[in-house]
């Protein structure tokens, strides 16, 4: 849901290992503070895109009512969101969550029979291969990290391992928000993360309309304000939606930083 890369990776002739190490250090730093879980998940998705050279990525969580819900996506395009949202009913991410195992299709065109609704939607969105890795907590699978390529190709084993490592960070991020370990905490935290996403999308809509900007610029404005004032992204979003905070456009120079 963000266009800016939250975690600076790549470039400058550094090795990929270096890039990856920096990305994980940055994520680990985030986990120490009083962080916003949806903000963290958005960063993870952005990291996924830059480190793995994939086209699109998204995180889906078990809503505990028998469906999957999108909690982070690398973009706001309708077709991309639909590709994720379709997986409430069928698709690699749903299979991944059901089995607790990574699910991949290197050539979606050849897998039409496997997912009759998901494949045409993915192809229409320009995606030709997909991988889903599970967010696992002991015996339970709480969601999946879904990555898409525009090319027909299988994800390299080392790339799949990186995707799994990022999925594990997402799991930790969702569960570590409270220090106590009551058995009910997982349910509370999953619902909290899903609801935070909804509030942030509502706030993006308010700002996009009021400031006459795109949803991604609206998101950048929200995030910039949260960082400048050391606030949680979700708290800023709630203030915007409730009309307690008016955020005008940030100047272009700030967006570019």
């Amino acid at each position, binding site marked *: 849901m963000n266009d800016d890369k939250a975690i600076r990776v790549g470039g400058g002739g550094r090795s990929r290992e270096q890039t990856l190490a920096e990305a994980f250090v940055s994520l680990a730093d985030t986990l120490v503070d009083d962080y916003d879980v949806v903000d963290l998940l958005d960063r993870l998705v952005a990291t996924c895109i830059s480190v793995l050279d994939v086209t699109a990525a998204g995180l889906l969580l078990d809503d*505990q009512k028998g469906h999957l819900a999108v909690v982070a996506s690398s973009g706001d395009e309708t077709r991309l969101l639909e590709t994720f949202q379709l997986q409430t009913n069928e698709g690699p991410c749903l299979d991944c969550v059901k089995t607790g195992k990574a699910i991949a299709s290197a050539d979606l065109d050849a897998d039409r029979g496997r997912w009759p609704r998901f494949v045409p939607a993915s192809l229409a969105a320009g995606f030709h291969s997909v991988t889903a890795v599970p967010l696992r907590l002991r015996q339970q699978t709480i969601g999946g990290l879904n990555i898409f390529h525009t090319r027909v190709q299988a994800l390299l084993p080392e790339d799949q391992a990186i995707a799994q490592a990022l999925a594990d960070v997402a799991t930790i991020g969702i569960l570590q928000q409270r220090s106590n370990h009551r*058995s*009910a905490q997982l349910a509370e935290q999953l*619902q909290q993360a899903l609801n935070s996403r909804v509030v942030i999308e509502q706030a993006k809509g308010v700002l996009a309309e009021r400031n006459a900007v795109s949803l991604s610029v609206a998101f950048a404005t929200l995030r910039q304000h949260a960082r400048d004032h050391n606030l949680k992204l979700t708290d800023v979003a709630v203030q915007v939606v409730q009309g307690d905070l008016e955020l005008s456009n940030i100047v272009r120079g700030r967006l570019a930083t």
Partner: protein
Amino acid sequence: MPDRQRWTRLLAAAGAEPSSSPRRISELCVDRLGVTGAGVAMVTPVGNRGIVCATDEVAARIEDLQFTLGEGPCIDAVLSGAPVLVGDLDVVDGISLDRWPAFLEGAAAVGVRGVFAFPLRIGATNVGALDLYRDRTGDLDADELAAALMAADAIALALLRYRSDGTLIEDVDPYFTHQLQVHQATGMVQAQLGSTTQEALLALRAHAFVSEHTLVDIATAVVERRLRFPVEDQ
């Protein structure tokens, strides 16, 4: 606990008449979820509170206690937007005893051992909470949790069906909460109408109904700036 399809049908039937649905859904929870009692409380953005229904005197007492004291799982659920699930009120778990000293005393006095509070909300829109209680200890299992979350959605939807003039709009796909475009569009329409989030969502749903489109179609048109509210010639 009935299977999910059957539970969905039961909730839809109970939600058909919004004025009685909080009570009917609360009673369904007591019948099918192995809880002793249930209550629904409404909370408006300006902080007005009211007890919508309670299945028995103890459930009414739990609602009453929380509003009198200003503390308890229901209050926390409304404030945080996430369920608060306490299968054993006696267990010191770092949260409840510190946070709700007076509530715990009052709940114990009427024999309540476990409380499960579910916010009635869609995003930033909080309309209240569904409280389930047990006179014995024990967590909700995964099926009971799913059923309770669905029950809370059904009550929230029923309460959201009232327009400000008291009239009702027809129902829509309960899974619209999973469509991110709907939430983005709700925010945009809220700014277009200068309304609350709840009114914006109602406007979107009402327009989808009268124009015979799905809510997601209407939301997508708003997000792509092909449609603005108020809609002309409605």
